[in-house]
C-alpha cells in the first residue's frame, strides 16, 4: 500500500535532511582528522539505512510483476547492512576513547566480538527458507518473522559494548572535566539502544533509525562544542573555556577548599620565535602543552592555553607547600624533556600560583592577577640567577 511508503517518507525525510546538513557542514568546515572521518562514516551509514528502509516500502503490497522479488531483495539488503551501522558506532567510540582505530584491538577480542555477527549472517542466509527474521506474504506485504528480535539484539550487543567501554572510562577517570565529557558520550550511546528496544516491542514506532540520527546530532553538537573550547594549535582548552571553568568553580565556592590556579609562561619564547621563525615557535608551544598535559595526566586538573605563550592549570593541592613542590617537579620535567628537535632551544617556564577555593568575594581578574604577579616575580628571580 502506498500509504505505508508515504508514512515512512514522513518520518524518515527529516532525519535524512538533518544528517545531510551535518555531513556537509563537517566536510566543509572542519579539518579532516581521523575522528572526523569515522564520524562521517557513521552519518553516511545511517543515511544509507534510512534510504534502504524507505526502499523496502516502495513495493509493499504492490500487485506489479516482480514486486515480491524486489521486496525480498530490498529487505535482505536492509538486514545485510544493519550491523554495519552499529559496528561503526563501536569504531567511533573506540577511537574517541583510545585514539586508535579498531585494527589495534587484540585479535582474540576481535574474533570474540565478530562471532555474533557471523551467526547473524548465517541465519540471515537461511531466512529465505526458515523465515526466521521476516517473510513476504502472497499480497507482497512484509511480515515480521518468528525470531524478528534477533537483528535488534545483534545491533544492541554492539551498541552495549560501546556503552560499556565508555562507562568504564567514566568510572575510572580522575579529572572531573573529562569525566563529564565521557558521561555525555555515554548518554548519547544509550539513546539508540533504548530506541531499538522500544521498536522491538512496538513494531509501529519506527524510532530506531530516527533516534540514531538524533544521537548523531548530539555527537555533532558535542564535537562543535569541543571545537569552540579547544585551542587549535595545542589541542588544550582555550581561554574562553578557561574563563567559563574558573567562573563556575568560583560560583561553587566552599566545596573546593584547596583549589589552586597555576600560571605558567615560557621563558624566552619571543626569542625562539624571532630567531627560528614561526614554525619552530609553534612546535615549541605544542611541545610545552604536551609536557604540561602529560605531567597532570593522572590528576583532576584543568589545563588551558591562556594566551600566546601562557598556560594555566586549575587543580587541587593540600597546601602551599605541595603546590610549590608541584611547580618544582614540573620545572624539572621541562628541563629533562623540553629540548627542541635539533636542540636549537631549551624550553623552560616560570610558574606562579595562588589558592582561591576558600575565599569569598574574589573576582576572576583578581585571582589571575595574583598568580600572574607571582609568575613575574619568579621570572625576574630566574633571570637574575
Amino acid at each position: 500500500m502506498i500509504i505505508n511508503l508515504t508514512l515512512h517518507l514522513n518520518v524518515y525525510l527529516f532525519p535524512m535532511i538533518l544528517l545531510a546538513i551535518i555531513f556537509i557542514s563537517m566536510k566543509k568546515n572542519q579539518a579532516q582528522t581521523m575522528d572526523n572521518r569515522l564520524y562521517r562514516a557513521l552519518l553516511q551509514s545511517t543515511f544509507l539505512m534510512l534510504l534502504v528502509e524507505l526502499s523496502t516500502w516502495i513495493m509493499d503490497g504492490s500487485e506489479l510483476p516482480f514486486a515480491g522479488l524486489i521486496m525480498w531483495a530490498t529487505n535482505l539488503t536492509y538486514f545485510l547492512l544493519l550491523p554495519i551501522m552499529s559496528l561503526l558506532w563501536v569504531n567511533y567510540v573506540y577511537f574517541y576513547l583510545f585514539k586508535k582505530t579498531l585494527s589495534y584491538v587484540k585479535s582474540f577480542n576481535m574474533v570474540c566480538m565478530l562471532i555474533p555477527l557471523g551467526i547473524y549472517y548465517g541465519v540471515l542466509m537461511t531466512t529465505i527458507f526458515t523465515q526466521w527474521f521476516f517473510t513476504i506474504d502472497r499480497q507482497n506485504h512484509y511480515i515480521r518473522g518468528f525470531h524478528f528480535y534477533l537483528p535488534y539484539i545483534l545491533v544492541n550487543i554492539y551498541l552495549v559494548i560501546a556503552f560499556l567501554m565508555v562507562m568504564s572510562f567514566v568510572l575510572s577517570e580522575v579529572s572531573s572535566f573529562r569525566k563529564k565529557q565521557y558521561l555525555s558520550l555515554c548518554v548519547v550511546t544509550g539513546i539508540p539502544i533504548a530506541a531499538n528496544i522500544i521498536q522491538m516491542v512496538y513494531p509501529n514506532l519506527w524510532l530506531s533509525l530516527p533516534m540514531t540520527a538524533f544521537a548523531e546530532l548530539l555527537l555533532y553538537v558535542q564535537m562543535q562544542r569541543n571545537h569552540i573550547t579547544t585551542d587549535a594549535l595545542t589541542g588544550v582548552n582555550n581561554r574562553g573555556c578557561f574563563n567559563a571553568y574558573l567562573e563556575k568553580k568560583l560560583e561553587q565556592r566552599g566545596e573546593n577548599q584547596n583549589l589552586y590556579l597555576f600560571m605558567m609562561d615560557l621563558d624566552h619564547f619571543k626569542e625562539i620565535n624571532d630567531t627560528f621563525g614561526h614554525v619552530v615557535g609553534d612546535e615549541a608551544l605544542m611541545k610545552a602543552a604536551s609536557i604540561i598535559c602529560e605531567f597532570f595526566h593522572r590528576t583532576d586538573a584543568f589545563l588551558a592555553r591562556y594566551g600566546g605563550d601562557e598556560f594555566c592549570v586549575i587543580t587541587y593541592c593540600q597546601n602551599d607547600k605541595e603546590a610549590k613542590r608541584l611547580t618544582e617537579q614540573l620545572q624539572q620535567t621541562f628541563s629533562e624533556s623540553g629540548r627542541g628537535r635539533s636542540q636549537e632551544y631549551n624550553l623552560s617556564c616560570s610558574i606562579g600560583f595562588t589558592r582561591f577555593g576558600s575565599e569569598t568575594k574574589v573576582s576572576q581578574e583578581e585571582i589571575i592577577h595574583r598568580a600572574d604577579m607571582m609568575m613575574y616575580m619568579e621570572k625576574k628571580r630566574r633571570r637574575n640567577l
Partner: protein
Amino acid sequence: MSIWDYIQIEILPILALAVVLYLSLTGFQSFQNNQRFRVLIILVMCILAVDIGNWYTVLKPFALPVFFAWFFNIFYFLLTEIIAFFWFSYVYNQINENNLSARQKKLLKLSVIPMLVVCLIILGSPWNHMIFYINPLDHTYHRGVLHLIQFFCGFGYMLAASVLAYKRSLEVQLMEQKKEYRFLCFVVFLPFIGGILQMLNYYFVFLWPFTAGAIFLMYTDLQKHQISVDPLTSLNNRGNLERYLQQKITNRDNGWYMIMIDVDYFKTINDKFGHMAGDRVLQILANSLKAVFGSTDAFISRYGGDEFMIIAEAVSTEALDGEIKRCRDEFDKQLKEENDLYNVEISVGYAQYIDADKTPVQEMLKKADARMYAHKRKEKGAE
C-alpha cells in the same frame, strides 16, 4: 494514519529544535540577532506540537468538543503567519548587520500590517468563515473563500526576505558577506519545497519539518561563523586558515601567494598605550586589509597575536607589491584619522606556491617569515 504516526513525524524536528534552542541559550554570546532566532525556534516548535493536536481532531472528530477543532486550527494559522513574519524580520536584521537606520526600523514596523490584518481575519473565523470553518454537525474542516490569503501572506513574507537578501548580496563588496546573504536567500527553498510537496499530497507532512531543517541549517551557518572567525578583528582565525590551506593543496591550486604581515613594535604599543590601543591598531589593520583584499577572492586571516596572513592570487609580484602598498597607505590613512599619538609600521613578506615544487606549507611559511624578518631588520637598520 494513526495519531502515533503524527507524533513520530513531529517529535524528531521538535527534539532537534530543542537542542538548537539549548545551544543558542548557552553559547553564542556575540551573536546579536540571537533573540529573534530563538523566538523563531520556539514558534516552529509550537506549530509542530499544534499540528499534532490538529491531526488528532481530524482523525478522531468526536473525541474532543468542537471547540478544540476551532482552537487548534486558529492557533495553527496564526502561528504560520507569525513565523513567516519573524523569518522576514530575522533576515532583514541579518542583512543589515543588525543595525537598522530609523527609516528601516519604520519600514519593518509597517511591514507588520499585512500580518496583523490576516491574523484578525483568522481570529474572526468562527464568525466570518472566510479562511476556514468547522462543520458543527460532523466536526469536519472546510476551506473558506479567502483560504488562499493566509497562504499568500505567509509565503509573501518569506519570498520578500529572500528577494531583499539577494539584492543586498549584489550590493555588498565583501566576499564573505555576499556568501552569507546568498545563503539567507536560498535557505528559504527548504520550507518552499516542503510546502509545495504537502500541497500536492494530502498525506505528506513536510512543511514544518522542512522549516525545522532550514533553521538547523541556519544554525550550522552561525556556528561556522563562530568557529572560524576571530572575535576582535572579525577576520578568519587560525583554525580556519589551516583548513583553507589544506583544501587549497588538495585541490592542487597553483601559483597563489602566502602573505605574512606583522606589526612592528607591537609590544611597545601595548606597553606604552595599554591593551585597548593595541587592540585598536589590530582592528584598523584588519579593516585596511579588508578594504584592499576584501572584494577579491583573497583569504584574510589573523595568524596569531599581531600577525596576519593573506592567501591571494596575483598576476605578478609587481601587482602584489602594488596591493601591499595600497594596504600600507590605507592603514596609515585610517590610523591618522584616529589619533596622532603614535605611528605604526608593518612588515610584509610573501612566498609563492608552485604545485610542481611540492613545497610543503611549512616551508612556505618559513620563506614568508624569513622575508618578513629581513624586511623588519632593514627597517630597523634604517632608523
